[in-house]
């Protein structure tokens, strides 16, 4: 009788074993040579989960040297990829997402009660047994900050050339040109026209692209919110600085165009459920400057209205805009010196910042709130395309 030996498939416990000599291949195939596109359709942050399962097996076998070596080569591998792709938004997002996910795994499975409150019983079985990786978590957090800063730098580099023409020079409201001060340069409304000016749609199109990539790569929602808050701050600062330096855009009609553009950006944020990012709040100075351009500027009551409205602008900035303000046409009077004196008198008790311009390079501190995953390690399997057949599921 043919006796079939039924080899009971040992339950996969969510660990991955590999031989020390395969570590270089692991880092090459899973980090340095990996293209995000290869993993489209798989679980987001798959590399992070695979790396955690390798760490877990090294911990399970109490092999501290292997844990040290794997984490160090992983971190160096990620830094190497980021250096090579320092202008690639998708690749940078991909590794920010995976580095944060690995950080979350080292917390979620650390055995620290505080990080286990949302774990299932099965997930609690997948905790590390022998090693406390608190210090490596700090290193991964520092690395995440570096990757985040690279991501912002790339995004700002793409956005910055669009801002001034899209926010201040391109007139998308029909008929505004009739009320522009003389000598004003008219811009067409195509996305980018001959002399490299952009319309607001170009900014919104770029924001859509950023958001889609970050969602596709599984970046934590809280980090996505911080990215847009930072980018909107830059739009605010670059636009306001131009208002404070250029007479030709300090006009009633530019105020009107600005308010329209800002409302379009606000609508976009709401449409993508990003309004709680605080992005609109970072644009408050610009919002108030746009309103200031449209307020009346003659009587004491007008001065009081301006002072009570422009709480996010410094006295210097208010005075500068009033000095640069260009009447619509010969029927409108220029802002008088005495009116500006009234404003200064009403604001003399403010202790304003001294600098006129905003620092558009200012970076808000970034936070990576703990975000445990509902996935259990034994539900994760490795696609063949990764060429990691030397990893042994345990």
């Amino acid at each position, binding site marked *: 009788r043919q006796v079939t030996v039924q080899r009971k498939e040992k339950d996969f416990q969510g660990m991955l074993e590999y031989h020390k000599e395969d570590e270089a291949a692991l880092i090459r195939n899973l980090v340095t040579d990996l293209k995000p596109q290869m993993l489209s359709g798989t679980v987001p942050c798959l590399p992070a989960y695979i790396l955690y399962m390798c760490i877990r097996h090294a911990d399970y076998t109490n092999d501290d040297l292997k844990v040290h070596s794997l984490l*160090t080569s992983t971190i160096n591998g990620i830094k190497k990829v980021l250096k090579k792709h320092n202008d690639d938004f998708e690749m940078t997002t991909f590794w920010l997402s995976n580095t944060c996910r690995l950080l979350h795994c080292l917390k979620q499975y650390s055995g620290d009660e505080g990080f286990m409150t949302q774990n299932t019983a099965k997930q609690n079985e997948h905790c590390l*047994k022998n090693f406390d990786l608190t210090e490596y978590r700090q290193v991964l957090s520092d690395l995440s900050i570096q990757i985040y800063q690279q991501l912002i730098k790339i995004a700002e580099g793409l956005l910055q050339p669009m801002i001034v023409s899209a926010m201040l020079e391109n007139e998308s409201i029909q008929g505004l040109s009739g009320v522009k001060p003389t000598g004003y340069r008219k811009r067409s409304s195509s996305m980018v026209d001959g002399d490299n000016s952009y319309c607001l749609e170009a900014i919104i199109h770029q924001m859509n692209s950023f958001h889609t990539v970050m969602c596709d790569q599984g970046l934590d929602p809280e980090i996505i919110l911080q990215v847009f808050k930072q980018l909107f701050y830059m739009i605010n600062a670059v636009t306001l600085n131009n208002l404070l330096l250029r007479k030709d855009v300090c006009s009633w009609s530019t105020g009107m165009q600005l308010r329209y553009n800002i409302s379009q950006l606000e609508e976009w944020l709401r449409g993508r459920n990003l309004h709680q990012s605080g992005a609109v709040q970072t644009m408050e100075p610009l919002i108030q400057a746009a309103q200031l351009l449209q307020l009346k500027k003659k009587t004491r009551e007008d001065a009081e209205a301006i002072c009570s409205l422009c709480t996010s602008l410094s006295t210097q900035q208010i005075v500068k805009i009033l000095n640069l303000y260009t009447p619509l046409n010969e029927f409108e009077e220029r802002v008088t010196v005495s009116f500006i004196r009234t404003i200064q008198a009403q604001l003399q008790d403010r202790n304003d910042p001294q600098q006129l311009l905003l620092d558009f390079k200012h970076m808000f501190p970034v936070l990576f709130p703990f975000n445990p995953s509902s996935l259990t390690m034994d539900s994760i399997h490795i696609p063949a395309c990764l060429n990691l057949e030397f990893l042994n599921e345990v």
Partner: protein
Amino acid sequence: GTQRPRPRVLLKAPTLAEMEEMSTSEEEESP
């Protein structure tokens, strides 16, 4: 009583900068 899990051993981690130095020196060593 339930056996208390053994305390985990804290693995000392180099800083990012130290890792960078290590990786540069490795690259220099390897031909």
